């Protein structure tokens, strides 16, 4: 912990820390405000359909990624997150297109449906830990995808549902949709952040670090795990509805293992120890394909290689890169001292 800055060496670590803390907090707040202002203002100056599209994709993907981050923080890696994305999307699209219900009702019902499904299976599967949980969610995701393919009257089968209308003619303009996505994304990511900084957040961390110890200390482990799972799946179901009405198209392919895997990649690449991780990872995953356009295979190969490298050598992900460099530099400095 005693990371000494060059000039603070003689005063001792305590003083250096005391000087550091407020400054880093100020930097953090400054950065967040700057980011918020930037996100709100840039569309007013730049009118580029492609940039709008990228930004909307990024904002929506951030919802799924940060909600999966909640589950990962409890120590569980879910391989069926995209299944809940699909449940939300299909419910929302069916309510809006068949029953002509308003868009807001549709996305809320989609989120609710995904959350209900999570509530039904959560208490059972969350008793499993580690590899067994990964395997069960892997198989569950596959079952849900098969249901999407087979239940043709509601899902359109393998072809999916086409020509999903925008939420309203007003939101047909990508600039307007950007602000909608920004508001909803900020809401969802903010909710995740709020949960993680609350008392529940500390309980979540304690469950990951030592489930039995947490239980002994009076943390209602299974109840908190189920709650987090339900909230996270509800959020990703919410994303599903919003995303379907943006892309105007849903199909089982979009909710397969590959997509669940993408959410994991985002978290692994970004880093799994703080909410910054999935946000960084989302940026990376959404922007890289655009740089490698036309080379879809190459992009997947690169992602795969990154997964291997990160898992083998960089457990903290991109967000942990800074700390890792600091640690290495500290070690180098330590080695130089007599």
């Amino acid at each position, binding site marked *: 912990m005693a990371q000494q800055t060059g000039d603070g060496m003689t005063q001792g670590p305590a003083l250096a820390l005391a000087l550091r803390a407020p400054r880093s907090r100020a930097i953090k707040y400054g950065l967040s405000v700057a980011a918020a202002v930037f996100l709100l203002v840039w569309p007013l100056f730049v009118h580029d359909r492609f940039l709008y599209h990228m930004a909307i994709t990024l904002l929506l993907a951030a919802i799924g990624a940060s909600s999966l981050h909640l589950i990962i923080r409890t120590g569980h*890696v879910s391989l069926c997150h995209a299944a809940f994305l699909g449940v939300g999307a299909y419910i929302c699209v069916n309510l809006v297109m068949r029953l002509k219900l308003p868009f807001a009702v549709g996305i809320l019902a989609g989120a609710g449906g995904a959350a209900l499904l999570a509530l039904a299976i959560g208490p*059972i*599967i969350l*008793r*499993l830990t*580690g*590899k*067994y949980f*990964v*395997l*069960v969610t*892997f*198989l*569950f995701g*596959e*079952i849900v995808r*098969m249901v999407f393919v*087979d239940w043709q009257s509601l899902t359109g089968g393998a072809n999916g549902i086409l020509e999903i209308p925008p939420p309203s003619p007003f939101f047909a303009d990508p600039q307007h949709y950007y602000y909608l996505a920004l508001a909803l994304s900020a809401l969802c990511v903010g909710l995740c952040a709020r949960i993680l900084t609350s008392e529940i957040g500390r309980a979540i961390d304690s469950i990951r670090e030592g489930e039995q110890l947490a239980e002994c200390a009076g943390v209602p482990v299974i109840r908190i795990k189920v709650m987090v799972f339900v909230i996270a799946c509800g959020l990703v179901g919410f994303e599903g509805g919003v995303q379907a009405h943006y892309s105007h198209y849903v199909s089982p392919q979009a909710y397969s293992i590959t997509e669940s*895997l993408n959410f*994991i990649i985002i978290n*692994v690449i970004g880093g799994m120890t703080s909410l910054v991780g999935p946000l960084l990872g989302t940026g990376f995953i959404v922007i890289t394909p655009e740089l490698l356009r036309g080379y879809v*295979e*190459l992009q*997947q*190969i690169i*992602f*795969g*290689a*990154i*997964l*291997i490298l*990160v*898992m*083998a*050598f960089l*457990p903290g992900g991109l967000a942990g890169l800074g700390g890792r460099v600091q640690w290495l530099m500290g070690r180098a400095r330590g080695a130089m001292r007599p």
Partner: protein
Amino acid sequence: MLSLLSNPTILGQIVVNGLSLSAIYVLVALGFTLLFGIMRVVNFAHGEFVMLGGFALYYLYGMLHLPWLLALVLGALAVAVPSLLLEWLVFRWFYQKMFQSMIGLLGLSMVLMFTGLLVWDAYERNIPRAFDFMIKTHGVILPADRLVTIGAALATLGGFYLFMVHTRAGLAMRAAAQDVEIAETQGINTRRIYQLAFFVAILLAALAGGLYGQIYAVSPFMGERPLLVAFVVVILGGMGSIPGAALGGVILGFTESVLGTLYGGSAAAYASFSVVILLLIFRPWGLLGTPE
């Protein structure tokens, strides 16, 4: 529906299909469970080695027209030997790290699958049948092709069994599977054992890939289903348990054959997945595994 079972032709077909599916599943799952049992590695890239095995047989038998048996063996070796390089580059970093191995090897699976897509494109190729006559006995028609598949798989399984039970290397492997540290203190070179286990596992997967590709078709995505199957089989039997993999493979092969013939392929898939999920919930260590 069940009255179909009294028809000898259909019954014979179910049995032969069940046996050949079981044999292939057991081959795939054995390698998977070996990697897990000894190195604690969950090989999400296992299906890709099956895929490579399929392509190896496609080239050696379908294009070069080598004798079938020779092509099958050479093809498996042609996949397993170069894979030792992958062991050195990728796998060895994940030994005894179960969680990291899952995600890291998912990455390897992506690398191999999409490299395959770059090289071979997405369309499916067929490997010509090795034998295309039928055998008729007692009113039952059996395709020779399937019988040969069963024979090849059984011979491999027999060889594997002899290797594990009657050689020193097999003994060392079983010891390492039981407890790595104690095996090391007894003078077993675990690095060598890991390499050997990896080689055997990939050899079995590639061999299964050839047989599987000959029944269905060869494409860069053909590994997805064998991977799912390996999961189901290994969970059924118990992760890391070798007899468990054999039992699980037979159960799954016959379930799929019976349900698939009577009710169609997706009914079989739903049934097997549901059973496995239930098993994971109530008895996560599987039928023949031991609780941790």
